[in-house]
């Protein structure tokens, strides 16, 4: 807590105030300087490699789909095959509904699971849950599509938005569980002890102190998981299935952006190709927007 002076470390002098000649004389100084600069350049190059794909994708999408990204595209239903024009309004709304549904289902399960791993149960149970979550995180997303297809779609005898949301939520649960666990683990045990020593019940400590302290982190985890599944196509192929008109309710096949992009991209019509690009642009913008919200949340934390 108290700032301890650390006399053992010499203060780094800025070039102006340090006795410059003395330092420049030593050969080590130059070697260190060159090595330092080398690593600096190397890490800048790595950063560029990380950033450039994002920029490339953006530029490419804008040039290929930007012209088709009209008001009609955002507000109109798809036109029948052969007619030009029309839009993906149903797919945009459908994607929002599917992701919201998945978030609604997976958040309580994932957060409670994360709490359980951190706060309750014996070490073996905890390790088992964590291992399971890790394995689930690695399950290819199409598997979830098949599972939900056989569990829900076959039983309901129809593709549906419900099934699509459920398939997405299966992907989100282990992601949310793991991030919740990580951020709860970051809450210093001093707060837990202080709460318990005040005579609070364990559940109260978890809810009012630990979860409250970690809430931004939990929310960030949920949003990241949502952003991740927003672009999933495979699990929706035989659950939500897609729809060329509005879905009246959740028990009907529902359109989703990734599905629509998939269908349009493999079609033989140039107009649909352009629309697929525009759809990709909208999808990327959605995910980008979510990431910005996540950033804002994470920043507000330190405020």
């Amino acid at each position, binding site marked *: 807590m*108290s700032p301890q002076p650390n006399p053992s470390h010499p203060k780094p002098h800025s070039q102006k105030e340090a006795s410059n000649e003395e330092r420049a004389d030593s050969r080590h100084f130059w070697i260190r300087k060159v090595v330092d600069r080398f690593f600096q350049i190397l890490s800048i190059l790595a950063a560029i490699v990380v950033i450039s794909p994002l920029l490339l994708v953006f530029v490419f999408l804008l040039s290929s789909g930007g012209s088709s990204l009209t008001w009609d595209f955002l507000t109109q239903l798809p036109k029948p095959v052969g007619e030009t024009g029309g839009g993906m309004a149903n797919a945009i709304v459908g994607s929002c509904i599917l992701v919201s549904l998945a978030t609604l289902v997976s958040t309580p399960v994932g957060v409670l699971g994360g709490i359980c791993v951190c706060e309750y149960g014996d070490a073996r149970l905890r390790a088992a849950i964590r291992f399971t979550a890790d394995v689930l995180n690695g399950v290819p997303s199409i598997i979830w599509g098949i599972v939900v297809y056989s569990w829900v779609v076959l039983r309901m005898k129809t593709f549906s938005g419900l099934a699509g949301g459920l398939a997405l939520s299966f992907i989100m649960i282990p992601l949310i569980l793991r991030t919740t666990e990580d951020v709860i683990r970051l809450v210093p045990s001093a*707060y837990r002890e202080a709460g318990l020593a005040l005579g609070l019940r364990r559940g109260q400590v978890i809810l009012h*102190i630990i979860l409250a302290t970690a809430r931004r982190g939990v929310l960030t985890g949920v949003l990241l998981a949502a952003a991740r599944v927003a672009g999933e196509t495979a699990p929706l192929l035989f659950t939500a299935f897609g729809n060329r008109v509005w879905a009246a309710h959740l028990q009907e096949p529902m359109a989703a952006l990734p599905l629509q992009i998939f269908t349009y991209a493999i079609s033989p019509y140039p107009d649909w190709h352009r629309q697929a690009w525009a759809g990709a642009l909208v999808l990327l913008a959605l995910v980008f927007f979510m990431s910005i919200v996540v950033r804002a949340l994470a920043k507000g934390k330190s405020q």
Partner: protein
Amino acid sequence: MSASASDPKRAVPASSEGADPQKQSPAFQIEDLHVWFGSRAVLHGISLNIPSHQVTGIIGPSGCGKSTFLRALNRMHEFTPGARVQGRIRLFGDDIYESSGDPILLRRRVGMVFQKSNPFPTMSIQENVLIGLRLAGTRNRELLEERLEEALRMAALWSEVKDRLHAPGTELSGGQQQRLCIARALAVRPEVLLMDEPCSALDPIATAQIESLIRDLGQRYSIVLATHNLQEAGRTADRTAFFLEGRLIEFGSTKKLFTNPSQKQTEDYLTGRFG
């Protein structure tokens, strides 16, 4: 400090019915207390009566079992995997390890202040002080406001924070944060206050403030103060116990223990021969 002394609303801690709360009956009667972590014994049979309405200092070198001892007094070991406690501890006559006893109720009677100040980071000063009462079910706003002021006055913090009760508790300085933690513990009106090296992370001025606060509170509460700082025990404690390697070596009035210890080990420790 003076604010708290002149405050008429100052709380008298509730005491167990029947027993005379004044000096005679001990706060804690501890008989043959053993604590193990796994197979490692940390306390080997401590028997000790901790007087009420006094400050009892626990001194000893690091690892002698001071913290372990304190944590046995409010059953905090129950959250440490592998910890086992044996022996009998009575708080004003009530056996605290009785199977029917709820540790939650015990911890409302036995407050604790930790080495590192730990105000809850998501809560304001006011919320920090009142969380214990709120979550115990107190809804009455007037009562809450009264307790808020009372606790902050007793912790000698009221005058410094009364104009910014809604500011985050973490905005305060280190010493103020520690006093906030003391206020938080006092707000539920405990009978005993356990303090685990409360000044070890503070600068000398904040330390002096907390020590003077401990002496004031010692008139009203039974305080158990673990410290590795001998001077601190000398300045604040009425009685002092010397622990060494999980055993109680000597217990007596602070003056006697510091000036004329009866045990050789105590003398060696006080004169700096080890620890």
